[in-house]
């Protein structure tokens, strides 16, 4: 379980998070929606310890990630996998080296087993025969899937998705959505996704939370989200320029 308690974060004068409270239960897929630049990715980076909050706590299975030292943090991070918005594959490495990096660095698995595990993981995301390719040779959708393979190669308990369907065509976006659902069903992974793609949110989420003006203003199932009367959430899911959210 991940508990986010009263998290605040400022970048200079810009107050990005102003007291975020959110609990993610084991095994669920929580989707955090909100406008571009509202702090969704910042929140995700706090959960995996890439950023430290100015105030507040984030507990991962009861352990506070915000006050952990480097060693504790690295131990906690081994419970996580993360898919980045632009995939963040290492340019200088092949697909095999990207996906197997965590296994090669953190386990004593023999090389043959690592290569087998890499092949299996790539198969799980619908890819095969690209182990020796470099990221520059892959399409956007393939990069996302290799990024996903890298995120799940170490069998994490939690996977964080930063805009998993941004920058790819709608068909490939649906492939990614199906993969996320499949991973939850087959590997019982707890997932947190941030997105402004409302179609994707409805499809993959067990619960949807909306981040607005630095706070979580709404939490509900996809059905509850569709039917909510909350004016901010309604404006966002309808994609309307008219309403309480200024269209700046």
């Amino acid at each position, binding site marked *: 379980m991940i508990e986010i308690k009263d998290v605040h974060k400022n970048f200079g004068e810009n107050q990005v998070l102003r007291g975020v409270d959110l609990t993610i239960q084991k095994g669920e897929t929580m989707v955090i929606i909100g406008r571009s630049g509202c702090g969704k990715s910042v929140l995700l*980076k706090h959960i995996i*310890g890439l950023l430290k909050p100015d105030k507040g706590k984030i507990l991962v299975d009861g352990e506070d990630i915000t006050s952990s030292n480097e060693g504790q943090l*690295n131990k906690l991070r081994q419970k996580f996998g993360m898919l*980045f918005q632009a995939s963040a594959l290492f340019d200088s490495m092949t697909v095999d080296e990207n996906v197997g990096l965590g296994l090669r660095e953190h386990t004593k698995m023999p090389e043959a087993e690592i290569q087998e595990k890499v092949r299996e993981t790539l198969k799980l995301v619908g890819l095969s025969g690209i182990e020796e390719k470099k990221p520059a040779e892959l399409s956007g959708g393939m990069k996302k899937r290799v990024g996903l393979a890298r995120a799940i190669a170490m069998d994490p308990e939690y996977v964080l998705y930063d805009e998993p369907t941004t920058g790819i065509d709608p068909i490939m976006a649906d492939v990614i959505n199906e993969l996320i659902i499949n991973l939850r069903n087959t590997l019982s992974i707890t997932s947190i996704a941030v997105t402004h793609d409302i179609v994707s949110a409805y499809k993959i989420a067990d619960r949807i939370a909306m981040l607005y003006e630095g706070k979580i203003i709404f939490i509900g199932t996809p059905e509850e989200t569709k039917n909510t009367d909350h004016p901010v959430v309604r404006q966002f899911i309808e994609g309307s320029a008219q309403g309480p959210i200024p269209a700046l």
Partner: protein
Amino acid sequence: MIKRVFLGLPFVFRRFRLTSEQMLLMGVNSLPLVALVSVFTGGVAAVQAVYQISDYVPMRYLGTAVGKAVMIELAPVLTALVVAGRVGAAIAAELGTMKVTEQIDALETLALDPVKYLVIPRFIAGLLMLPVLTIFADTIAILGGLGVSAVSLHVSPHIFLNGLKDFFKMMDLTSGLLKAFVFGSIISIIGCYQGFKTTGGAEGVGRSATRAVVISSGLILISDYVVASILFG
């Protein structure tokens, strides 16, 4: 960053491949450029020495003048400035691109320390390859001086080499190599630091590469004066 680099040094032995790749990029791939700069540096040193000393110093000391100027000052400093332009900028641009494309964040999410993975191999490569390049530059520059002396200045190679040998002190060579160690550390650390603090996309990457070259070049010249003052002052 410097403290983390020293604490992570044992990592070099566990992952020597990362360091050897950087040594290849920084050292071997810089050889043609360093050779080009060195051969003309040696030639110019010989021509200038003849212009300055020919009225009151016998030509048998030409090899001495060129050798000392090359080993103590010209080869280490010019090699370092060339490598700062070629490699320092490349380090800052590569790590800067990794920073803005979240590859450094991705390393951290895999519970891997970016300093160990990215900075230490480059630091060690800089530390080791600059002295190697400097020895190479010493040799090429002296050969350049010798060639120009023989062809244009009518000083035979025998006389030139005798002058070089007779007044050679080990300190001439070691002081240049000590400078090269310092310059190598400066180039790699400044390149990595500028890369790690890159923000703002492609424009930011360009800015970091420029800063890495400018700051490294400035620090190379300042530290050259400091080391020279300590050794010869």
